């Protein structure tokens, strides 16, 4: 990303008085996530009111006596914080949070949690052909800016047409069946081969929280297909799936904003 931006700075925007410095290694980050995150973090934060800090905001503050940046963000669907500290000061804060009862979680758990909430992973739910609108994120794209990288592409006929493959949720009729990531979706499992493939599964897990399998998929005209039953043909049988919204947990966001 840094090289990409440096490239643009030198070739497209040489008139801007801008310099780029990577701070990737300067900052260490702890993602503290879950219903107890606020109570656990509060004793370590000196100078701000965590209760007044809303989802998707950032504040500078003192954590453990060190100047920190605190983000209230979540990639888990639960209320949570990402604590940014100069890397060398991270460990004591980590240890204090473990002492307070936090449990370390790995990327597998994180993938599971974000899928329940329908948060995408770029490169898993997406490839180079997927637009923000396909993901239901079209509202994040500025209509007012006179230019930005990618603006021209988004206007191309094929990228702006309706009925493209869109992000949906899939629920198998049998809650114990976990779909295969990459599996194709068809409308008629008994039709002639090769069948018209309407989309594919991008993420699939068994959710312990929901006590059933869940999946995310890209599906032709997917938003209009919610409520329909489609089929995922596999070597050992055809799996019927219901098309849903791509969010299985806390759709109202009460936990996230709580």
């Amino acid at each position, binding site marked *: 990303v840094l090289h990409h931006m440096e490239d643009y700075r030198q070739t497209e925007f040489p008139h801007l008085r801008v*310099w780029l*410095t990577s*701070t990737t*290694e*300067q900052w*260490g980050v702890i993602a503290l996530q879950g219903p107890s995150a606020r109570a656990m973090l509060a004793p370590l934060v000196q100078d701000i009111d965590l209760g007044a800090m809303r989802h998707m905001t950032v504040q500078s503050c003192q954590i453990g006596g060190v100047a920190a940046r605190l983000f209230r963000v979540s990639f888990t669907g639960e209320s949570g914080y990402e604590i940014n500290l100069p890397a060398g*000061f991270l460990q004591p804060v980590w240890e204090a949070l473990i002492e307070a009862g936090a449990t370390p979680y790995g990327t597998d758990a994180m993938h599971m949690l974000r899928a329940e909430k329908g948060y995408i992973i770029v490169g898993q739910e997406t490839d180079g052909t997927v637009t923000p609108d396909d993901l239901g994120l079209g509202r994040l794209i500025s209509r007012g800016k006179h230019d930005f990288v990618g603006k021209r592409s988004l206007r191309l006929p094929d990228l702006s047409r309706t009925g493209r493959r869109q992000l949906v949720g899939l629920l198998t009729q049998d809650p114990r069946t976990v779909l295969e990531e990459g599996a194709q979706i068809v409308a008629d499992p008994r039709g002639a081969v090769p069948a018209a493939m309407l989309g594919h599964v991008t993420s699939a897990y068994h959710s312990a929280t929901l006590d059933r399998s869940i999946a995310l998929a890209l599906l032709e005209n997917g938003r209009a297909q919610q409520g329909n039953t489609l089929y995922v043909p596999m070597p050992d049988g055809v799996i019927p799936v219901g098309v849903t919204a791509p969010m299985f947990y806390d759709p109202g966001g009460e936990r996230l904003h709580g």
Partner: protein
Amino acid sequence: MAEDGITVARAAPAIRLNVRADTHAAATVGMALGVLLGSAPCRAVITRQRTALWLGPDEWLVLAPETDQALLQQIVPVPASIVDVSHGLAGIDVIGPRAAWCINAFNALDLDPSAFPVTACTRTVFGKAQIVLWRAGADAFRIETARSFAPYVWACLDEARREFLPSPGAC
């Protein structure tokens, strides 16, 4: 690590600033920071305890003792980019008569004093890592590398300095 003719040590915690400014603004920026941003390519300039390593016509790495917190509070009156990378980089001191030889095990620069004299500094590679190399004294080199690359650089230096360990049974 201290063996015949070579000491490799983790540098003390320091303040590190990546400073970017147009050449013509460098004097103003330097004055505001309390450090002379030199214009001689690949040369370090020390102002009291603050060292500015020239990395490019518009880029310097400023090093100062960790206690010099005032350096982080300076306001600069002209467009410039001053970024705190104190924790982003890690310093390793390589000191002793064998220091240059040890560094050359993983870096191809000519470190003869005629080519790389005291005060010389440059961004270069060490094995597969990007480093900043600064000759602070005749036999004293400082390596600055990205924090996460420091264990790799350290391991390479350890491998190089093993050349000088007395071999078992040699006496």
